[in-house]
């Protein structure tokens, strides 16, 4: 979604596309109806007049669209104001040329019967003025619509950013505490924790919706686990089930797996005095990547607000990237809680 929007920065519709042509035809016909009705205020309404007006308006509209289609690449390179002016100019010119041609054709037909007939007629200028005003209004419409889309996109982007950067303050301060504790007794490990943390925070500041090889995400997860293991000691055990998986070929949106581990540890392992095991599984089946994290359940547990929020965040991010094909399932089994993420192995 984002990508499409980024590559075509122009605010004008693509006049070569079938859909746009249809819109042009319908728009032109509506204009023809309005013009005929306005004419009806001064004269009798007639089908013949409507047909003539339609023919003329369609002629102008379609040929302008054709010209704009030919000029597409050139127009899209122009700044917005110049592009709009150019479009208006094209339509005005087309109107002028066809009005003139119309008058000339009529002149040729009626020349013998009406000696007072003049090719230059006020009507040509009326046509040109109407064309200029209508095209101007349309440009304004496209412009406003584009602004709206931009705004929506910016909002979506900032949402993704906000969701991604939500590394828990708990984690930040707990890690700081670990570093403070280690500096005096084990400076080497303290140094390692600082490195791991920098890696994690750098990742959380990356561009929204950034996809990385699974190997990178797993590396982040291992660094994260390393820090938590220092904190929780033997209470935290992690089992990795990654057999038969090409970690470099499979991609994953950055920081998708790590928040699941964080959840499993904060809500699953930490409340257990004996601790427990977190199991991480990754596999590709039927062209879908499946990542799952499960943890032992504390005896007395409540579905935590923080957990729900993290799952919602991941769900939004996956949907933004992969659409409806991605999903996230959380379920409670007998003695463990499992979250599974499924998304297409290849986009598109």
């Amino acid at each position, binding site marked *: 979604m984002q990508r499409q929007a980024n590559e075509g920065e122009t605010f004008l519709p693509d006049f070569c596309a079938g859909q746009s042509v249809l819109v042009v035809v319908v728009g032109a016909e509506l204009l023809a109806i309005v013009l005929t009705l306005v004419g009806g205020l001064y004269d009798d309404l007639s089908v013949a007049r409507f047909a003539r007006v339609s023919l003329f308006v369609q002629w102008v509209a379609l040929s302008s669209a054709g010209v704009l289609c030919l000029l597409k690449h050139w127009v899209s390179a122009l700044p917005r104001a110049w592009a709009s002016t150019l479009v208006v100019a094209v339509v005005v010119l087309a109107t002028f040329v066809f009005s003139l041609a119309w008058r000339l054709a009529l002149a040729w037909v009626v020349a013998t019967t009406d000696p007072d007939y003049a090719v230059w007629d006020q009507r040509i200028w009326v046509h040109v003025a109407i064309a200029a005003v209508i095209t101007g209004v349309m440009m304004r419409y496209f412009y406003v619509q584009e602004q709206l889309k931009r705004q929506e996109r910016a909002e979506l982007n900032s949402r993704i950013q906000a969701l991604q950067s939500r590394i828990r*303050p*708990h984690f*930040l*301060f*707990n890690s*700081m*505490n*670990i*570093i*403070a*504790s*280690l500096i*005096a*007794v084990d400076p080497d490990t303290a140094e390692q924790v600082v490195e791991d943390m920098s890696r994690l925070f750098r990742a959380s500041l990356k561009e929204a919706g950034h996809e990385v090889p699974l190997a990178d995400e797993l590396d982040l997860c291992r660094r994260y686990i390393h820090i938590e293991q*220092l*904190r*929780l*000691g033997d209470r935290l055990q992690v089992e990795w089930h990654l057999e038969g998986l090409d970690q470099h070929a499979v991609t994953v949106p950055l920081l998708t797996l790590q928040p699941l581990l964080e959840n499993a540890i904060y809500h699953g392992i*930490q*409340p*257990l*005095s004996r601790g427990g095991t977190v199991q991480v599984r990754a596999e590709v089946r039927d062209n879908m990547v499946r990542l799952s994290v499960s943890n032992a359940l*504390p*005896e*007395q547990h*409540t579905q*935590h*607000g923080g957990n729900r929020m993290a799952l919602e965040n991941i769900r939004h991010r996956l949907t933004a990237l992969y659409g409806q094909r991605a999903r996230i399932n959380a379920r409670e089994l007998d003695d463990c809680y499992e979250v599974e993420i499924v998304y297409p192995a290849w986009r598109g």
Partner: protein
Amino acid sequence: MRVLVCDDEQLARGRVKRLAEEIEGVTVVAEAADGREAVSEAQRTQPEVVLLDIRMPDMDGLEAASHLLNTERPPAVIFCTAFDEHALQAFKVHAVDYLLKPINRDDLAAALERAGSLNRVQLETVKEEVGLDEESSNQRQHISARTHKGLELVPVNEIRYFQADQKYVTVRWPEGEVLIDETLKELEDEFGDRFVRIHRNALVALDYLEGMELAEQGHYQVRLRGLDDRLTVSRRHVPGLRKVMQRM
């Protein structure tokens, strides 16, 4: 000054201990890895101040504090936390002592210096506010009772029933019974989802409820798993209890 340090993370505990012992006149008399241990160690070593982490497995800091208040000479309590928005808010409002992790040595010295005793009203309000905000249950995991052996902690999930006497409430669990100074009404409010009222003077644990039977004297009584005692069900509570048992 005798200090007890309680934190479930060993590294964190080590650091607090180190910092505390650098302060003149301070001795760390014991360490504990969870609330239960803190309560029992506090009884054994009688510290003047307890540095208590909030988030711990089994028994969290807030609950441990409430049991500590139940001891004969309650120590001053200073809560420690890395990040607990709700709790911090409540501590500030109710002037409860707390320290933020990583703990700063000057802050620690100052906190130990002025450590005042925590009172029950403060603690209860704080617990209530924290519980409300976090959608987590506000129930204690243990009931504490002062006995001749000192403070005894009874895990709530082991309790079979509460029975009111004249002035006290008897808490019955497999390892015996203890008397506590709380009312059945308070207990019912707190543990209403786990205990059911069967008589004006008794609450029984739903988890251990085995059956209801007619006694020879013509009244109903309940059997509880792992217990020979039979408890009388008052006539008024029979229909309600029947409904509860059908749902099980």
